[in-house]
């Protein structure tokens, strides 16, 4: 078990959620659910964070912000999409300003359904994310590259494939990690 999985740090960003999942993410850190008992700390600095919790769908305005936060996080990192809006766009997927789930912008490792997502589910997902974090850390230590899910590879890719998805250079297949 690596140091980061003993005490992974979280960063949370609210995409375009209704605030419900958002509050539940905060709630999972409060005394009743207390995710901090697993050594987890909520941080505001992307560079310190290992796990990225995103709530809400991606829209034209926040797609840049989400990518910016993701790019600033150092490897190994795990992305957890909290709530149905973050997974697929949820009830808002027909809205004109909504591009879809978080995987339209960045690669997602865990999908947590629910409207609003329950704190128990968030805790479960974060603990599973820790395992993924561990695997990634091991791969990095062995000098391997981390295979990433392709951006935009989700259910509704077939429905609206022409969405403007920018894929970061280092996530493209065959790209080499910079030293």
């Amino acid at each position: 078990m690596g140091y980061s999985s003993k005490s992974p740090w979280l960063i949370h960003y609210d995409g375009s959620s209704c605030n419900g999942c958002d509050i539940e993410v905060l709630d999972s850190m409060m005394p009743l659910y207390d995710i901090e008992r697993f050594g987890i700390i909520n941080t505001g600095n992307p560079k310190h964070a290992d796990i990225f919790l995103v709530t809400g769908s991606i829209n034209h305005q926040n797609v840049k912000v989400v990518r910016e936060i993701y790019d600033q996080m150092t490897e190994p990192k795990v992305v957890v999409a909290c709530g149905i809006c973050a997974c697929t766009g949820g009830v808002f997927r027909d809205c004109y300003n909504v591009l879809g789930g978080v995987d339209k912008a960045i690669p997602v490792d865990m999908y947590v359904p629910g409207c609003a997502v329950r704190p128990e589910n968030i805790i479960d997902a974060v603990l599973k994310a820790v395992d993924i974090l561990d695997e990634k850390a091991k791969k990095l230590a062995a000098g391997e590259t981390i295979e990433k899910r392709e951006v935009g590879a989700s259910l509704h890719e077939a429905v609206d494939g022409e969405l403007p998805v920018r894929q970061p250079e280092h996530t493209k297949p065959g790209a080499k990690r910079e030293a």
Partner: protein
Amino acid sequence: MARQTILPFGPQHPVLPEPIHLDLIVEDEHVVEAVPQIGFVHRGLEKLVQTRDYNQFVYIAERVCGICSFGHGYGYASATEQLLGIEIPRRAEYLRAIFEELSRVHSHLLWLGLLADAFGFEALFNHCWRLRETVLDIFQETCGGRIILSIVMVGGMNHDIPDETLAGICQKLDSIKRDYREIVNTMLNDSSIKSRLCGVGYISREDAIDLSMVGPFARASNIHYDVRSTGFGAYGDLDEFVPIVSDECDCYGRCKVRCAEVYQAIDIIKELVAKIPHDGVGKKPGPKVLPPENGQAHVLIEQPRGEAYYYVRGNGTKNLERFRLRTPTSQNLGGLVKALENVDVADVPMIILTIDPCISCTER
């Protein structure tokens, strides 16, 4: 004169649970001006009313905001009932008011916690959120959900809440009162908290009127305006309703108003539970009931953050033509920019929080 620099604040910032961006124009540690930029949460939800049945849209309206979710369902349903000319049973009105006040209790507790977090009082933050869980438990017992309740529908309520459960709710609220009193005591009397709040973010009564501020933010600037005092829904049956105001006009005043409003909300719930009539909770309008063409209706509701305005227009089909919502936070943003003039950078998080911004309502 010091050189002016621009300090970007948000959209991702530890103090903000929600994304709003402010360009703070600063001279040394002094904020000269704040320029807000919004739109990070815009989904275009109002447009969905044209593609959904008016009964279905209640559930979309609830998802305008996850904190005052019940209130948005309430507002939309009331406006649509007015449009369709439906009279709902008094019991349904009472239950709606009870849930609205419960939302106010949990919203204000949430806000008190976030405020404590903004000035770094972590223990108080945790205590406020612990108390808030009691209200969420009530929601879960009565509606099944913690955040999205889906109990309100066009024509009344989805299901009835038995009288015994209502009595249980009153008991639970009584049981949190003791803990809550301690929190309020710390919030209002602790000298370190006072020194962070008193005199910070001053908005005079004249400015508050000019900027048409609403809700506790305006009431803290000594404006006697609360939609509940107009007696809509079940609020008209209250023995007496006096808006809670304060003449401090600063962050401390806003904190004081909200602290007192929780007690007031608990009293209202108890009074309504004692008076609740037994005439059913209404039923969904049949498929033949359609909104009239070009008919329109509007409703004002006092949300935890202030006055919210709901407007609906029909076009003769089961889909509505237009749904419009004006939220308290969009009214208060002007006041926020005003309050952020000539303050210290360290006070910015406090001032932003004391308007209790709900960005997802504002941008929908």
